[in-house]
């Protein structure tokens, strides 16, 4: 908690810098310091093919990165319990951080909802994120107002949720998109539109970034 105060001071300094260009560069340097927290290492026992999965033959198994569905590496198939443990901890972690943030500030139309194992994050006019588990595929599915739908698999080597087609990391993607939303708000501020709401929202969005990847600041 205490570590957030100097950060907020830094954020307000950033905000006071007049031209947008230096602002952008200093925000970039801020984001570079965001190292993602290490996910817990699961005790993965030898995989076993879950009988509940039935995948279509042919097209799905042809390896190709840019076109069509990604190939499945059966050696890294998670057992269902392990998948639930990992996915639940990721989603609950995010949910807690987002709720914390929601309690502290008030963005117009902000809402975090977790029901039926689906996490919904509403950012008012900026759009809605929906995150859920897709158990048969051992994936976390994300729907983003910026990047659309993505499906993340657990990568043992990276110890993270990765979207095979774009190699995107779940937390990194959320972080960069929230930064992008920040940029959008920043442009609105400098163009003198929606000033009162945007100023608060800008600080709030950056705050979310801190919370989402915030473990670094607890050191």
């Amino acid at each position, binding site marked *: 908690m205490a570590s957030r105060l100097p950060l907020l001071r830094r954020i307000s300094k950033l905000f006071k810098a007049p031209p947008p260009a230096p602002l952008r560069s200093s925000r970039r340097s801020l984001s570079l310091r965001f190292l993602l927290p290490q996910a817990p290492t699961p005790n993965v026992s030898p995989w076993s093919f879950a009988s509940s999965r039935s995948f*279509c033959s042919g*097209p799905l198994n042809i390896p190709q990165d840019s076109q069509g*569905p990604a190939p499945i590496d059966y050696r890294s198939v998670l057992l269902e319990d392990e998948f639930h443990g990992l996915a639940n901890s990721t989603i609950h972690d995010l949910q807690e951080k987002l709720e914390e943030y929601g309690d502290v500030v008030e963005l117009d139309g902000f809402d975090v909802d977790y029901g039926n194992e689906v996490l919904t994050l509403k950012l008012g006019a900026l*759009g809605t994120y929906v995150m859920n588990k897709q158990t*048969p595929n051992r994936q976390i599915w994300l*729907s983003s107002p910026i990047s659309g*739908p993505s499906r993340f698999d657990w990568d043992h080597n990276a110890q993270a949720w990765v979207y095979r087609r774009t190699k995107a990391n779940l937390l990194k993607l959320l972080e960069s998109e929230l930064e992008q939303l920040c940029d959008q708000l920043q442009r609105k501020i400098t163009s003198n539109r929606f000033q009162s709401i945007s100023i608060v929202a800008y600080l709030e969005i950056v705050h979310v970034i801190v919370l989402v990847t915030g473990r670094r600041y607890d050191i």
Partner: protein
Amino acid sequence: MLRLVAKRLLGTASGDIPSRPLQILPRLYHENVIDHYNNPRNVGSFDKNDPNVGTGLVGAPACGDVMKLQIKIDEESGKIVDACFKTFGCGSAIASSSVATEWVKGKSMDEVLTIKNTEIAKHLSLPPVKLHCSMLAEDAIKAAVKDAEAKRAKTNATLKGADVKSG
């Protein structure tokens, strides 16, 4: 007293319990989705052994979504002359694959690979939770094209082999 309790439970007690107004659901299917659901275009199947037919089968029953999209290629021009689909899934999935079959007709195989799930989603005004259906439709198109190309390559290879033998 029991009778009164029962009446209250059943909601027939006069005056005490106000009648609840009908709750209008905030989320509705867009009219384009309803249209495609009620009047789906190009439902059916082609003979998958036809060398000019490409079949894309994506999804999994366990996930609740399976799409089969087939395209018929014209031998000479290499363009898609006909398409059909069969989908097991929600209204948005059915609509997405129906739209996909409409959009691929008359285009070349390279051109249809540029069809993005975002365009399908925008056309149908899909809510965030249903964007995955549009992605599946895009995957179905890609899978069908891939199959068609593989078949063409195979046919060409066989023809070349036959030429060499006869020549």
